[in-house]
């Protein structure tokens, strides 16, 4: 009996604290800011979005000036998905453009916060690094480790951020709301009012994905679209296909909105296999999706979370070590979407299916072989 009471108490505890804690992923201010940035004109050379930036906040880096050659250290959250593989290849190629970089030390946290904290510690203890680049596995968890590193050497953070302003700069594209807005507005513009939209999400709880979803839902609500479901696919093709099949069995689907496009082709195949016309769909810049889009010509948009952002930290690192100013403390770069109009620029059947087309890598050394292309 006593055990029972304890168990009930623990469950109640779980439930009550859960109620009290809801992080805010639906921030109208941030939503409007990102909506503006999407259409704003970025500073920097045209056609090279990886060095472009919004706004004019610049940080002085004279105090980091140092003679070369440099050892660049990179604590990577992981190379556990195709997006990160493309990005990591970009970064390695970018290093080749900078003879002043003697060595790139890369430690892979294999998707574990705990390991990444230890990795950063190791890099600091190693004492070889001229600069530290961090792609944090999660924002909150890596904050203390990054704070510690800031005290020792210049730190550049990109992709996901950290909850501290101590890094020299934080490089990232417009953001989750922007992605959600691009995809959401496309669906809203093309689907009739009251159309059935299925939201396919990867997993709950990841901040960048949550903001994408909240932005889209806000738009769908404004437009009066009927969101008939919000399902989590875990990025798994088979699960995605099964989920869509089940929805098709239950009724009609007009549009599919995805918070990440990795499994877009699987979702489309469910329609094909059921003998239904392809829906309006939002994907991402993965080659398999772009090629299918080109071949079938359905209504689609591919907002991107561009992998060219992996080039920027290296560029920034060299600037910082030379003492040149860089955009900061936030370096917000453009986040273009692929549309039917510019699709042809990005489709390339020589590239592997999971290659992310918005890589800005076409002129980098060893392209396309290093990216797996022919």
């Amino acid at each position, binding site marked *: 009996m006593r055990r029972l009471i304890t168990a009930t108490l623990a469950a109640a505890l779980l439930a009550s604290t859960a109620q009290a804690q809801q992080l805010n992923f639906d921030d109208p201010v941030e939503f409007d800011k990102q909506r503006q940035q999407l259409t704003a004109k970025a500073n920097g050379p045209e056609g090279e979005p990886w060095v472009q930036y919004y706004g004019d906040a610049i940080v002085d880096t004279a105090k980091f000036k140092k003679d070369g050659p440099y050892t660049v250290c990179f604590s990577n959250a992981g190379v556990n998905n195709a997006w*990160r593989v493309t990005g990591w290849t970009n970064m390695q190629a970018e290093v080749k453009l900078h003879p002043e970089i003697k060595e790139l030390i890369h430690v892979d946290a294999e998707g574990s916060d705990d390991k990444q904290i230890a990795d950063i510690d190791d890099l600091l203890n190693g004492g070889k690094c001229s600069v530290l680049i961090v792609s944090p596995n999660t924002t909150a968890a890596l904050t203390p480790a990054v704070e510690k590193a800031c005290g020792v050497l210049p730190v550049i953070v990109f992709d996901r951020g950290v909850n501290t302003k101590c890094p020299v700069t934080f490089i990232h594209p417009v953001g989750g709301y922007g992605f959600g807005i691009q995809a959401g507005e496309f669906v809203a513009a093309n689907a009739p009012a009251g159309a059935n939209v299925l939201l396919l999400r990867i997993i709950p709880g990841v901040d960048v994905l949550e903001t994408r979803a909240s932005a889209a839902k806000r738009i769908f609500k404004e437009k009066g679209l009927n969101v008939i479901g919000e399902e989590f696919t875990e990025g798994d093709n088979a699960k995605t296909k*099964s989920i869509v*099949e*089940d929805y098709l*069995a239950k009724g009609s689907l007009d549009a599919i909105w995805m918070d990440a496009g990795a*499994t877009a*082709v699987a979702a489309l195949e469910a329609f094909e*296999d059921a003998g239904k016309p392809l829906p309006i769909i939002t994907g991402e810049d993965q080659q398999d999706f772009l090629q299918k889009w080109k071949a079938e010509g359905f209504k689609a948009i591919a907002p991107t979370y561009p992998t060219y952002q992996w080039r920027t930290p290296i560029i920034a690192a060299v600037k910082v070590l030379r003492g040149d100013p860089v955009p900061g403390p936030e370096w917000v770069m453009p986040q273009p979407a692929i549309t039917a109009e510019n699709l042809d620029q990005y489709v390339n059947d020589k590239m*592997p*299916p999971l290659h992310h087309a918005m890589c800005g890598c076409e002129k980098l050394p060893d392209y396309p072989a290093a990216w797996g292309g022919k």
Partner: protein
Amino acid sequence: MTQPASMRNIAPARRRLQQINPVYFVLAVLIVAIAVSNPSFVEPTGYMNFLKRAAPLAILAAGQIYVIVSGGFDLSVGSLITLTVVGSSMLLNNNADATWWVILVMYVIGALVGLINGLVVSYLRVPSLIATLGMMITLNGVAFMWSSGSPRGYLPETFRYFGRVNIQGVPLIQFLPVALIALVMVGATFYWLMHRTNFGRMLHAIGDNPRAAKMSGVPVERVRVLAFMVSAFSAVTAGILLGGFAGVSTDVGIGYELQAITATVIGGAQLLGGRGSVPASIAGALTLTAIFTLLNFVGLPKPTRDVVQGVILIAAVVLATYRRNRTGT
């Protein structure tokens, strides 16, 4: 003479009913429940899609039961599925002509993996849980190394045929998924091998009591190695179907090892060996898939599905233990 009186008095029909594995009743109930909650399920598209989707797990469970009956576990099947899909995409690179030899290469790799698992367990005496855990980690690494992190080739339609295509114009049922044909063929072969050959009996014997089996002349090591090879064969087959169903991705196989073991347990298999059936394991896999489908139709979120799967897993074992204790066997 040794039969308790109560057993003798039960009418034959009822006794036979008691002997039927409860997994079949559970499956039947679930199917009815799905049909009620979603009437379109009784149409060919409904149930055929269901079977097509369940086929890889069912085949995997039918292979896993070989290792379970022999007294071990095979945790490496999930990674082997991943390796099959990634490896095929690397070798094929959208070249349809290569389909057949690539499939052959995959089966050779599978046979090798099963062989190594079996040899490590038999001759190095490493518990299968650890041996196949090591293999799982290793194969995952191999798949990633091979593809440098993301697969670099497409799977041509000839390869995807097995997992994706429905043969149209079949009388009565309109269409027939190739995956279902694969399931029936593999299921029938595995059933025969497990329940109609000396090998199957040897498998039960070594899982039941390896020392007695050895002393009775059973080639324990050879049988055990073969069990792991059958399991690996099923994993490659499941990989081909999954790759066909959903295309290239790097994490296709994740979690399948535990699902396959769960399916065999729901099918009444005795962990640590000696008892288990291929059809019941397939039924276990269908049951598991049916539960997920039903929860999906009812609209329960994934967290609830995890809880339900956990509870069902434990309940299946409790029920089996209870039945065994009650019948005194």
